[in-house]
């Protein structure tokens, strides 16, 4: 009987069986005076997965998430699939606090990135919670969970809302989700219509040498410039960051090669995402870029954000060493504020430490910050790294950084990020003055 009521993709009960079960459980609960909780879970982004990768892709996501849900709930509750991307969990003998705790746990387990080949998908979900009231109609009870879920979704998703706690519905969440989709489309447009470019900001040593230039991505679609603050998070969510990263690695490497041929031998620093470094194909992609650009590897530096060091997998470790073996430099970006762990620092074959601007803005007056900068600089030196300070705008900051022993400076005090031609002009002016 029940074999027919099972969803073949997930092994969960199907909609019909769910409605039948909730009736039975509600009757039992009402009789015993115990509580029954329902969690209504809606996965976001699944529609896009289906549209982009077909239903097979969608099913793959569903299967893996169902597996996670089953493991996380550890035998508590009955799981049902209500439709494409909606699940219900019915938990007998569960009060509001427990239900909320479980909902939070489930959100967390759903949000762990799902890996597909070289792409990462970042699933998220909205959860509605309802607790059966005395003599409540079981269908009305499920409907309350569904409505609470809709509220969670309207608030932007990635959260759980209990029935009865819903605030006035707002439109902000919907607008945000729409904006993300629009940015994703624009990124695709930019990738296929030449809408990406790099701007470069010089990093100047205290000895007057150009230590490197950092490549910063600019993205234009439909004639409109999209801010990195907006497109980078969307690119990270959708996995497009790998393609953007590979594009900028090649473009930056080619520019390094052009600069070299023009007589300005300078390192070009390119930002590398966590997703790129976690890909087993990273060494091949790096070598392909070096080869395609016909550039000496010592002219390329990869900038790694500090968040990378939260969790250094074996693949990341291997890839970092492969990059060093290829002769490419490694810089740790935004050092000192986020996830830096000194224990990690000793394991990473980095060649450069870039101190976060947060330390720079409070100089020269904040003497404690100055002491920290000095100590970090010392540490970097001891580990054989070049130490750079970012975000330097004023002469007094520059003086303090010189006193702290920093090697080089990046910031408006020297130059703003500029397009390729402008940077060449900047070089020419410097060499003629």
């Amino acid at each position: 009987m029940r074999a027919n009521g099972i969803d073949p993709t997930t092994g969960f009960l199907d909609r019909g069986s769910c409605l039948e079960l909730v009736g039975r459980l509600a009757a039992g609960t009402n009789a015993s005076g115990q509580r029954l909780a329902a969690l209504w879970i809606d996965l976001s982004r699944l529609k896009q997965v289906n549209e982009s990768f077909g239903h097979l892709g969608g099913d793959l996501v569903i299967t893996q998430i169902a597996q996670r849900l089953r493991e996380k709930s550890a035998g508590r509750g009955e799981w049902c699939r209500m439709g494409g991307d909606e699940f219900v969990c019915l938990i007998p003998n569960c009060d509001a606090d427990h239900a909320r705790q479980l909902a939070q746990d489930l959100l967390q387990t759903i949000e762990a990135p799902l890996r597909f080949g070289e792409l990462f998908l970042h699933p998220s979900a909205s959860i509605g919670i309802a607790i059966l009231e005395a003599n409540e109609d079981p269908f009305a009870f499920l409907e309350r969970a569904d409505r609470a879920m809709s509220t969670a979704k309207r608030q932007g998703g990635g959260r759980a809302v209990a029935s009865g706690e819903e605030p006035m519905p707002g439109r902000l969440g919907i607008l945000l989700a729409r904006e993300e989709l629009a940015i994703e489309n624009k990124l695709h447009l930019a990738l296929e219509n030449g809408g990406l470019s790099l701007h470069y900001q010089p990093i100047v040593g205290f000895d007057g040498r150009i230590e490197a230039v950092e490549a910063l991505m600019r993205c234009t679609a439909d004639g409109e410039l999209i801010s990195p603050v907006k497109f980078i998070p969307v690119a990270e969510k959708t996995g497009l960051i790998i393609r953007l990263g590979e594009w900028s690695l090649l473009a930056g490497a080619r520019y390094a090669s052009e600069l070299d041929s023009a007589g300005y031998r300078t390192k070009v620093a390119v930002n590398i995402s966590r997703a790129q470094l976690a890909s087993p194909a990273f060494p091949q992609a790096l070598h392909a870029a070096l080869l395609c650009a016909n550039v000496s590897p010592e002219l390329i530096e990869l900038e790694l954000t500090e968040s990378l060091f939260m969790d250094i997998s074996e693949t990341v470790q291997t890839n970092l060493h492969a990059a060093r073996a290829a002769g490419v430099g490694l810089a740790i970006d935004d050092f000192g504020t986020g996830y830096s762990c000194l224990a990690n620092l000793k394991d990473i074959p980095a060649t450069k430490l870039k101190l976060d601007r947060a330390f720079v803005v409070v100089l020269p007056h904040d003497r404690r910050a100055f002491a920290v900068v000095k100590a970090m600089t010392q540490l970097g030196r001891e580990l054989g790294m070049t130490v750079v300070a970012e975000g330097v705008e004023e002469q007094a900051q520059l003086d303090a950084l010189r006193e702290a022993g920093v090697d080089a400076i990046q910031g408006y005090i020297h130059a703003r990020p500029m397009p390729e031609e402008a940077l060449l002009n900047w070089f020419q002016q410097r060499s003629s003055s």
Partner: protein
Amino acid sequence: MTSTAETPPPLSPVATLLESSLKDIGIPPRPTILDRISREMAKEDPDYKRLGNVIGADVSLSASLIKTANSPFFGFRNRVRTIHEALMMLGLDVASQAIAGIILRKVFPNSLHLERFWDASARVARLSGWLAQHVGNNRLRPDDAYTFGLFRDCGIPVLLKRFPGYEKILAQANAEEQRSFTAVEETQLPTNHAMVGCLLAQSWWLPEEVCLAIRHHHDAAILETPAISPPPASRYRIAVTQFAEHLVQRHSGLSHTCEWPKLGTACLRLLDVTEAEVDAILAEAVTVMTTEE
């Protein structure tokens, strides 16, 4: 001096400075004509006549584009005679990719003795265009299959140019019956032609699914397991051209590669073709191959 639409603006001092260095760059930069087309495409009312004049200035490019537009798989009833007609019939996006395919062959130095390589690519590309109409339930446009056929192996001439010993590696990879083609390359190189080709295509701003198909075209696991990346559009491209290559080799009786035993089953499954149907498709394809020679 005033610059008209037909004459490019004079080079800035910086551009002159860079011009000589471009020759030494590892992969050919995106042809400027493609930029002109993209700019025109971005307009609400693209000026076909002006583009026609720009393309027409290059006699061999024009001849090749007209020839491509007259390929049987486009199925135009009337023969295309002028560049203007070719652009109108193909549409700018298809024309742009066709032009990219034509120029690809010209941007590599002749000294590499690549004639046979390009001829083979062109043969596979044409048959891929034809196959796209006959198998796989129209999931792939013939012109997309054709362009992919031209670009699929574009990493090979790059590597030939850079590594004097690459020809030997290529021969070993072609003869390899067990490991994947790229795995053989990677025993002696830090990268492989699929990855290099993907980067070239990306830097020419070819569509994402083309880039990913180039990157994975020797990857049996990718063809066999449904996954989120590369998308189906990439996998169909890989399957169609691999099938075309197999038919070309069966027809000529010369198997230069050992890819079909490694990838064939997965390709046929993707294209909904059974082993039993292959002979009949070959018989039909032979007429296409011989008339196109």
